[in-house]
């Protein structure tokens, strides 16, 4: 089976920290050149690039806010201009603006939808151009189990993540004839800075009880699934949603 990504070029959004960082490192370890997108964490993104290049890989950090489509062309060109092509787009960047719907402001809704759904749609559209020319492409969208289950306090986030699943299937249908697949991953509770800050000890204990495997996931668990979907091994998989959640949902 082919998990070798030599000659492949990937763009990972939100790749300076957490799950995105692990994905960028894993894609690079499998041989891909990686555009490491970040919004604010420049030094963290540079660390990722340095780690990849130290191990003989190719990588480049590019600042862009995914919600702002005027930045998208530069992201795509960072891949095609520097590395000659774009094979793999991992739509990982996402934000939260958690609060109960009764208190949620229009801006909380717009901000989350703009980054987590609208931005992804437009960036994907831009990425499809080089992929169509190559007649090979992989779109991998980071959804969430919250998109499957809903969550109190995350109506905006859940709507965006569920919307992403419908978007994924539509892209899969539209692009299948060009040999471009689109799949989604729904991480469960993964140990990252985001979850470390967002959860009290009590909430963590409550969440842990819902995970049959009895532990939270690591970013590497998500990265492994991403590398698999990005590889030739997943050539007949498209429009699928893979939950990597320790058995939380089992939908």
């Amino acid at each position, binding site marked *: *089976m*082919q*998990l070798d990504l030599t000659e492949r070029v990937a763009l990972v959004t939100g790749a300076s920290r957490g799950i995105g960082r692990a994905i960028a490192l*894993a894609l690079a*370890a*499998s041989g891909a050149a990686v555009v490491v997108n970040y919004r604010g964490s420049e030094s963290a993104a540079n660390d990722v690039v340095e780690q990849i290049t130290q191990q003989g890989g190719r990588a480049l950090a590019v600042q862009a806010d995914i919600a702002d489509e005027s930045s998208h062309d530069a992201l795509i060109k960072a891949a095609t201009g520097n590395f000659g092509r774009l094979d793999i787009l991992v739509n990982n960047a996402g934000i939260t603006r958690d609060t109960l719907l009764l208190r949620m402001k229009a801006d909380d809704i717009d901000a989350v939808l703009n980054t987590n759904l609208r931005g992804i749609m437009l960036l994907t559209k831009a990425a499809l151009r080089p992929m169509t020319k190559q007649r090979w492409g992989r779109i991998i969208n980071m959804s969430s189990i919250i998109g499957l289950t809903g969550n109190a306090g995350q109506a905006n986030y859940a709507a965006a993540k569920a919307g992403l699943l419908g978007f994924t*299937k539509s892209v*899969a*249908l539209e692009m*299948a*004839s060009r*040999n471009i*697949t689109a799949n989604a991953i729904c991480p*469960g509770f993964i140990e990252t800075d985001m979850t470390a800050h967002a959860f009290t000890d009590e909430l963590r204990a409550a969440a842990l009880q819902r995970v*049959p*495997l*009895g532990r939270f*996931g*690591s970013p*590497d*668990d998500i*990265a*492994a*699934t991403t*590398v*698999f979907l990005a*590889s030739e*091994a*997943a*050539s*007949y*998989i*498209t*429009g*699928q949603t*893979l*939950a*990597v*959640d*320790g*058995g939380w*949902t*089992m939908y």
Partner: protein
Amino acid sequence: MSALTFHNQVAVVTGGSGSIGHLIVAALAERGANVVAGYHQHDVVVNALQKTFSEQVLPVQADLREPDAGQLLVDTALSRWNRLDILITAHSMIANAPVAEMSLEQWHAVLQVMLRGTMGICRAALRPMQRARYGRIVTLTGYQPLAGALDQANYAAALGGVLGFGKALAREVAAWGININSVAPGLIERAQIAAFDPSYVPWATNIVPLKRLGKPNEVVPTVLLLASEAASYMTGQTIMVEGGWRMV
């Protein structure tokens, strides 16, 4: 990611002579595993595997309609290699008919092999996996329980049962580090297709978004992923390998 290797691991594969099953046996053996290849028919296929991989592949004939067949396969692995890390259920049996015309024999035969047989061998595999606090069970199911299929109500019901059974068992044994997942292939090129109506392949090619049937060796990597340590945080999942046909 950790490379998909299975050195020193022991696997039992049912349907080891089948069009997908024999490729799974070969792929596991190539990556270092010792494999009991359960089979019912086509001993030529498993004997060829044994010739290629000699000590690493042990063909064992077993009829999963027999209540103790699963235990026999597991016991064979344990007595030969003293451990069991991986169980793949890749056996298949169909007896197609519309429900109105389906005989009770057709119903029972498919349920017996596909559901009862799967349950029996999964149960047999639990004890060694629990003792080792590690296990990977992968069931091969299909699109039928997820999307329905004409003339295959028995097959869809049996495989739907396997999916429900697998999720329930996944919850029961997660604490021992045993993960249970399923791979659901769509329309796949296999030997039996030669016997189908000649309109089948053009129909299937046209109806699948990727505009082709899947190849058996396109199903195998997903099985290997779920059988490996790389899938340590996945359990109770079903991955469809179906070219975008149903997307459920």
